[in-house]
């Protein structure tokens, strides 16, 4: 390697390491913080704990509050994923498979959903959920989340369904397989990669969502984990070791999940951005 090449490689390594450190250090400090006492945390927020105290972690894991939040979040996220995949793939299948009058308009209508976020309509959305009697009900979070994922999910699914070989349908149709049967027997099983992509994406969004549960769920028994973190923080104020342990325990499953589903998340992101 020539001299400027070597120099550039050095700069490159330095830049990458610094940015990586800026990302990782806060996360590591959070994990380690849960093992320290408040005094130790104050003395050395970023260093290794002098003694590894597991009490803070075990206390949280031993209580029912933490598991309650996780359970609520799991129920909501999995339901949102399931409903989104089901409704969106059915609609996307129609758009991909059947030509009918108005198809274009309906698709354009659904695409409106890509343009604006939750927040623009959060006040009337709250009223709507209240009028349906869905406050303090997981459905009050699940249904709007599903509705807001619909546009994105349909776009990705439709373009995938359109790429499935047409001959397959024709052959099945001749053999007496109807449109609905074909969807369940062929389209869905052949589409697992895109279903995984959309599903993972919806899951992450639902799992991390704060505004909607904040508005819909008042009773702390129904809290999702982001609401739980905020409540826990309000309770323990300056006992940062407890708060950091709590945060660590909630983000750990997400980080593990992410390491395994990375490829789907990235696929969803880039597909969404290329095809959008």
């Amino acid at each position: 390697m020539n001299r400027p090449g070597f120099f550039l490689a050095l700069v490159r390594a330095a830049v990458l390491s610094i940015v990586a450190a800026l990302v990782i250090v806060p996360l590591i400090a959070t994990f380690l913080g849960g093992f320290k006492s408040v005094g130790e945390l104050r003395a050395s927020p970023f260093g290794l704990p002098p003694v590894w105290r597991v009490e803070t972690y075990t206390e949280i894991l031993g209580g029912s509050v933490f598991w309650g939040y996780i359970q609520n979040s799991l129920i909501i996220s999995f339901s949102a994923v399931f409903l989104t995949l089901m409704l969106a793939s059915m609609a996307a299948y129609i758009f991909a498979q059947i030509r009918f009058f108005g198809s274009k308009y309906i698709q354009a209508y659904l695409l409106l959903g890509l343009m604006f976020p939750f927040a623009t309509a959060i006040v009337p959305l709250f009223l709507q959920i209240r009028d349906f009697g869905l406050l303090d009900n997981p459905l009050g979070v699940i249904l709007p989340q599903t509705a807001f994922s619909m546009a994105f999910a349909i776009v990705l699914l439709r373009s995938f369904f359109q790429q499935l070989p047409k001959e397959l349908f024709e052959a099945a149709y001749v053999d007496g397989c109807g449109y609905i049967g074909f969807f369940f027997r062929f389209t869905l099983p052949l589409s697992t990669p895109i279903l995984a992509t959309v599903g993972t994406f919806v899951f992450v969004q639902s799992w991390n969502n704060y505004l909607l549960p904040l508005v819909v769920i008042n009773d702390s028994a129904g809290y999702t984990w982001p609401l739980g973190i905020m409540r826990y923080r309000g309770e323990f104020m300056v006992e940062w070791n407890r708060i950091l342990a709590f945060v660590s325990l909630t983000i750990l499953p997400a980080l593990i999940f992410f390491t395994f589903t990375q490829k789907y998340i990235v696929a969803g992101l880039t597909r969404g951005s290329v095809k959008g």
Partner: protein
Amino acid sequence: MTTMTGSRPMLSPAARIARMHKQGKLMALLLFLPPALVLFTLFVIWPIFNAANLSFFKWSGYGAIDNFIGTQNYQRLARHSVFHQSLWNSLKLILASLFIQIPLALTLALLIYKKTSANTAFRLIFFAPYILAEIASGVIWSFIFDGDFGVSGQIAAALGIDPFYILADRQFAFLAIITVVVWKYFGYHMMIFIAALQAVPEDLLEAAEIDGAGRWQKVFYVKLPLIMHAIKLSAFFAIVGALQVFDIIIPLTNGGPSNSTHSIVSYLYTYGLAQLNVGYGAAVGVILFILCMVTAFSYRRLAMGKGGAL
């Protein structure tokens, strides 16, 4: 299925429906399409229309909606200094996203877009904050910024000065929020750029090399022009994202000190929803909606030139 429906435009609507029924299409259509449409209409479209309507009323959310006050909600917004501050803060977030976050993401993408195992590891690390919930990120960083514990506490202790509470400081609190936003989302933009860079045909780069293009020339004359669509798209996402920032602000400053760090959405939440000023909150929502639409349409015009993506 083009082969089956073909082009028979002469049929009457009734005959067309009859034919669809015979082919078994009608049933599929009636079973498969309505659920998505109904849900979408009820929870996305209707609330947004309703926001536009409610923004002309003064209403506490209960009883009849009969107190029509015209544009008074909008006039109040136009006069409220906290709302001005929240608009200004959103603009700061947009500028930081465009001129700090995107260049950072682009630089990193250029450094690690090639598929090697070290690059994959870096990619994984840089993308991790995007997966973390905003709330968790906000809580973690409020620890780091805490004057008694985190970085500033350490620096103050080392210098032997009084601890400095960044998040309680009118001048620096929003800067801290911008830092967290960049930390959280740069990896997302980097991923968009990486995907685009990986799609740049290798032979084009080789051709440029044969023509004597150096390292930088390849970046500026081949790679960047070829991923321009991704850069525009990323800018669009950055702006719409910056307009929506909420979850990060709540754990960091909750809009304080003295209401100086509100975003549009945290303003909407604090002054509209939390106090059940339904009309007022709806008016903020309408303004946010208009800002998003303007962004979307300007993006379209900008991107259309080269076969836009959205």
